[in-house]
């Protein structure tokens, strides 16, 4: 999949570009509205990620122009405007979806996948790590063939860690994934959930899967 990112801020642009490239997609990055519109009009991209505030030509005008020329490729809008009317305006102008700043890359990725309707390798129904299996459709969890009962939050945390197996996931990222942006419990709620998971997943097994990274968060690995 070839993706065009039209974003004038180099840090955000590079961040998005590298993140998407890690998913083995081809990414072009431009920082100017008119330049972006010219490239997108070539119709050689499967997806366009378009920032709303651009030098040269505002994002909304770029979007209008593209749709007016009959360019039908999915457009995902990046906006700092989370007002409903602004979102409605972009969707009506022809955007397929939007992500409001500041966003977590995880969310951007999920929306890119949804918009492009292309399941990536990670979204296969079953997640596996060693003898731990998570069925993402039924939310059933088994270790060594034994079913394990998890609460919704326990499942969410485990799934997030297993999906990023081998990578240290910080408490903030885990909290944000399982509880959303607006939740700030002021305490390390993740630690309590991890304790539960340890009892349910690792207790009685020689190979521990859940590991603590002091001061940061947790990693799931063999």
């Amino acid at each position, binding site marked *: 999949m070839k993706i065009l990112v039209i974003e004038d801020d180099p840090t955000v642009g590079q*961040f998005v570009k590298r993140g998407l490239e890690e998913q083995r997609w081809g990414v072009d990055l431009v920082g100017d509205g008119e330049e972006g519109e010219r490239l997108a009009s070539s119709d050689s991209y499967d997806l366009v990620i378009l920032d709303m505030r651009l030098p040269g030509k505002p994002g909304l005008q770029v979007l209008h122009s593209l749709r007016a020329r009959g360019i039908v490729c999915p457009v995902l809008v990046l906006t700092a405007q989370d007002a409903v009317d602004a979102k409605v305006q972009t969707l009506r102008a022809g955007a397929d979806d939007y992500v409001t700043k500041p966003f977590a890359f995880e969310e951007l990725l999920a929306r890119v996948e949804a918009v492009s309707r292309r399941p990536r390798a990670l979204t296969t129904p079953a997640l596996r790590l060693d003898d731990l299996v998570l069925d993402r459709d039924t939310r059933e969890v088994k270790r060594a063939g034994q079913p394990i009962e998890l609460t919704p*939050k326990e499942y969410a945390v485990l799934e997030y860690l297993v999906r990023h197996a081998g990578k240290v996931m910080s408490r903030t990222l885990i909290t944000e994934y399982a509880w959303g942006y607006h*939740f700030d*419990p002021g305490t390390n709620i993740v630690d309590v959930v991890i304790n539960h998971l340890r009892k349910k997943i690792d207790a009685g097994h020689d190979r521990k899967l859940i590991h603590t990274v002091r001061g940061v968060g947790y990693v799931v690995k063999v």
Partner: protein
Amino acid sequence: MASIRAQLTTAYAVALVTTVAVFAAISYGTTLSADRTARERALEQTVATEADLLLRTVQQAEASGEPLVTFTITITKGKRDSIPNVTPKLRTVLEGVPDYALVLDAKGRTLYNSFAFRQLDQDDQVSLNQTAIAMRADRFPPEAVDLRSRRLLLMARSVPGGGPIDRVVAGSEAKEEEGVAPIALGSAIFVAAPIILLISIAAAYVIAGRAFRPVDGIINEVEAITDGRSLHRRLALDGSGDELTRLTRTLNAMIERLETSFAALRRFTADASHELKTPLTVMRADVERAMTVPHVSTEQLEALEEALREVRRMSDLVDSLLTLARADEGRFDLVREPVALEPLVREVYETAMILGEDAGISVYLPVLEDVTVSGDPTRLRQLFLNLVTNAIKYTPRGGRVDLSLSKRLDAITFTVRDSGIGIAANDLPHIFDRFWRADRVRSRASERGGFGLGLAIAQYIAYAHGGSLTVSSRLGRGSVFTVTLPLDLSNS
């Protein structure tokens, strides 16, 4: 007194009472003195007639030739003295004269005094005598003499012919009688004044009310305009150019300035929040990317995690400020979709149990029936989680938190009841204020407090859904927060 209307009426009533009282007093006084003058004139005539009668009686008696006065001659220590005596003839004649009568000889000696005279006490007799001797004869009007017991009008006539009787004095009493007319006037005033007063006060009240009706209108309109959402409106001008029109113009100018400054404040908050979002996105992107670099050390990860947490807190603050700034403008940016509350409350309950486990607090939730409301699931989750987090935060170890969700006829209520430290009565009105926090010591020291926007946002969310968020609490007895949301009747 509360209203200007009442004050004006009172002032008017006082002025009216004063005016009526002064007027009554003056007219009563005038009538009284006019009456007295008339009576005195009549009395003067009477006295003059009596004096004439007395004089004529004496002259007729003299004309008869009989001696009226005899003299008794006495010689004491070589001094000759003659003492006059009234003869029975004259005495008989004089007895027929009414009222006060005195007959004097040339030396001022009393030859006769009437019965009325003799009824006076000794002092009055003496002073009356002296006056009778001293006063000039044959002068009209009669002279007034104030005795101790009464007031007399006296008139003296000299008896010509050089006889033993030199002068006669007639007198009549001036009685202090109330006239009939003043009494009638006095009672008329006494009865009529309160009635007039009542009617006048009622009229004044009505007139004042009518005069102030436009002011009432202005007050109501200003209240409607300054509720924070209608500052674009202006008061209607009636164009009459009176004081009220000027007041209206002044108020309109003031509302305009308020509108300008409020708009500037909101624009600043919105712009500032908005401008902060891009740098926050950049920081967040930097941190997230740095965390995924291969072979990053744990120390670096720790620092990055710290940075990420702060970026998230900042993002949340910016989001809250922007949300509240929009709410001030009356804009509620909510997604509206059917939200099943049972799963949402279960999810919140699970979170509460996890938090409670860490804090040593039991959390309870009775069996739920499912209800659906029309709302924004993300915001409702934020609202519920906020209440639950607070309940746990302000409840000591060993306490309990009870959640409940119940359905009423046209609304649902979600309550969070805790057995915590409660809220002081004088803090209660402020807990939904922005950036307001009670004594920071209350929350556990190990936890970092929020920005004091949580409950303001929570109340905004409930309000934006057409519902409410209320609290009841007593210090040391825990708190109950109640969310009420209108039931989405189309989905039930």
